[in-house]
């Protein structure tokens, strides 16, 4: 659905995007992660035609998005990270206004807008003024607005930012619903656990680069391998420390009361062997567990100081 080749964007001396390559198949829910200024919004704006690229190619459903801006507009629904509303305009009028911007007018437009308002659970707010809606409702209304022309690709920049847990849950449910409609969705967000729940694949951006990109399961699996091992020792801690220091797969270890936290690079089989060795050497082990991989850890690891030095 989306193919980006060697995309570069320069603002004066600042390189916002540096040879970005990305491909997102149809029906995918892609999570864009990265610290502020990493280039997520710039990428999204270039895809939508709101910014020009310094160099590179963007294809949306096989159409060159840089050359054929007019054609791709019908394929993309864009929701910016912040959107303003108009005073004195009702929710239904807001929807109909954007429908008319796509040339959808009359009864057809009204019917589509009604359906979309129902999809985002705002049917009872059709006659409410937009500026009087809560932030969560405005966010849902904006989401409905994105869908008014039935786009194939949805680009959502921070759709859940500034929302309370209930409103975030509602937005998440709508996105799940849209995903089941086979829409390709690109979401940028800082709320990483939610992205892990919603997305089928993710890409982590740092300083205009895509540092990691792939299916969420693969990335979490890889992350698990680099997560620390937590070993609870009841007795004979000295022997345990000696054995761990002798083990070539142990990179470093730290001790917290009766728990030893180990940076362990071995496989699952190595882990089993280590546990066996500890028990055979009379170490009383009450807990032996590998920390679960999560997006937050991946994010911190990939965008932390070490990574910045490497870049």
């Amino acid at each position, binding site marked *: 659905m989306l193919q980006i*080749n060697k995309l570069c964007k320069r603002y004066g001396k600042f390189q916002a995007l540096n040879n970005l390559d990305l491909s997102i198949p149809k029906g995918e829910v892609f999570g864009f992660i990265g610290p502020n200024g990493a280039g997520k919004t710039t990428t999204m704006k270039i895809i939508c*035609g709101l910014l020009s690229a310094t160099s590179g190619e963007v294809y949306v459903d096989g159409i060159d998005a*840089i050359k054929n801006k007019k054609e791709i*507009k019908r394929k993309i629904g864009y929701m910016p990270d912040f959107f303003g*509303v108009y005073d*004195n305009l009702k929710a239904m009028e807001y929807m109909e206004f954007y429908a008319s911007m796509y040339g959808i007018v009359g009864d057809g437009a009204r019917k589509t807008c009604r359906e979309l308002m129902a999809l985002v659970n705002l049917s009872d707010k059709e006659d409410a003024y937009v500026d009087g809606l809560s932030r969560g409702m405005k966010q849902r209304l904006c989401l409905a607005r994105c869908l008014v022309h039935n786009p194939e690709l949805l680009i959502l920049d921070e759709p859940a930012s500034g929302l309370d847990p209930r409103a975030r849950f509602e937005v998440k449910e709508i996105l799940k619903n849209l995903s089941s409609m086979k829409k390709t969705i690109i979401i940028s967000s800082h709320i990483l656990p939610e992205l892990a729940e919603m997305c089928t694949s993710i890409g982590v951006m740092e300083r205009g680069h895509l540092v990691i990109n792939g299916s969420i399961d693969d990335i979490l699996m890889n992350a698990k391998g680099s997560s620390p091992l937590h070993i609870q020792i009841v007795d004979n801690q000295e022997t345990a420390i000696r054995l761990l220091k002798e083990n070539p797969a142990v990179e470093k270890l730290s001790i917290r009361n009766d728990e030893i936290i180990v940076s362990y690079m071995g496989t699952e089989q190595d882990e089993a062997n280590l546990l066996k060795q500890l028990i055979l050497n009379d170490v009383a082990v009450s807990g032996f567990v590998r920390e679960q991989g999560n997006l937050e850890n991946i994010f911190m690891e990939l965008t932390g100081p070490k990574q910045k030095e490497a870049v």
Partner: protein
Amino acid sequence: MKINPILNKEMKIGARSIKMPLIVMLLNSILAFIVILFFYAYGQVMTSSGIDLYSLRSVVRIFKILGWVEICFISVAVPIFAASSISGERERQTLDIMLTTSAKPMTIIVGKLTSSVLTILLFIVSTIPVLSLSFVYGGSVVNKVFGLIAILMVAILYFGSIGILTSSFCRNSIGSIILALVFEGLLVFGTLVVLGLIALVVELIWQIKDLKGTADLGYTWLLLLVNPFVTFYEYISKATGGNAEILREIIDTNAPGMEWILKNWLFISCGVQILLSFLNLKLASVAIRRTRGQKVKKKNKKSKKNQPVEEATN
């Protein structure tokens, strides 16, 4: 009939705003106050001097005053409405969303301009009853009042297009309004200042060369065609019984063709200003395009045509 979506939205929002009736009330109150004051002052002079001042020729002078008040109102109100239209969308962060829709930049610009023009026109039309008071002692009300509205409409379009142009490349509304007022100032006063300076230089050359007669500015006078206040002056002077060739008294030139231009000044200047308005709108649409980055580097344009996506995604 398909109505411009921006115009439709703006009209809905405008109609619900308290600003509109307030401005209508304020403008009409000012004009009515001027009319009352004028008639009162005339009455006082007539009582003390015993001269009948309520002759047709004397009373229509109030039409001139009201006309000038209206054009001054337009020159201030139009930039406030038009120059904040697109920059206002930018400030609200709704312009980006608009630009991702199928609507062309020109549709956005025309919608914004039309809504500003119609709003100001509503204010002007609301003053017709007050304007008509000028002809309470006789005279062709319909011709003169509607002639005035037609001239004011050209000025609204002209000033509006300047406002839209500044609005399309200014980031904030205040900057856009100030810039529009500066542009207007250049057109209204700048053209007069430039002409004055040119006249001084030509006069100097005339004296150095020891030529007889007065210095002739020739086609330089055409600069005044872009000045809406000169167009208005020409109309209002004629409408209130002034010289049929009022500009001929000011513009003294023997340049070929100028005689005809001076005779048809009103139509020519209106034509020039309408043409410049369209040029301003075209420039505004280019400015919006540039904002959203249609200017793509040549290197990019040479890039391979529609690369197969499926191949890359699999």
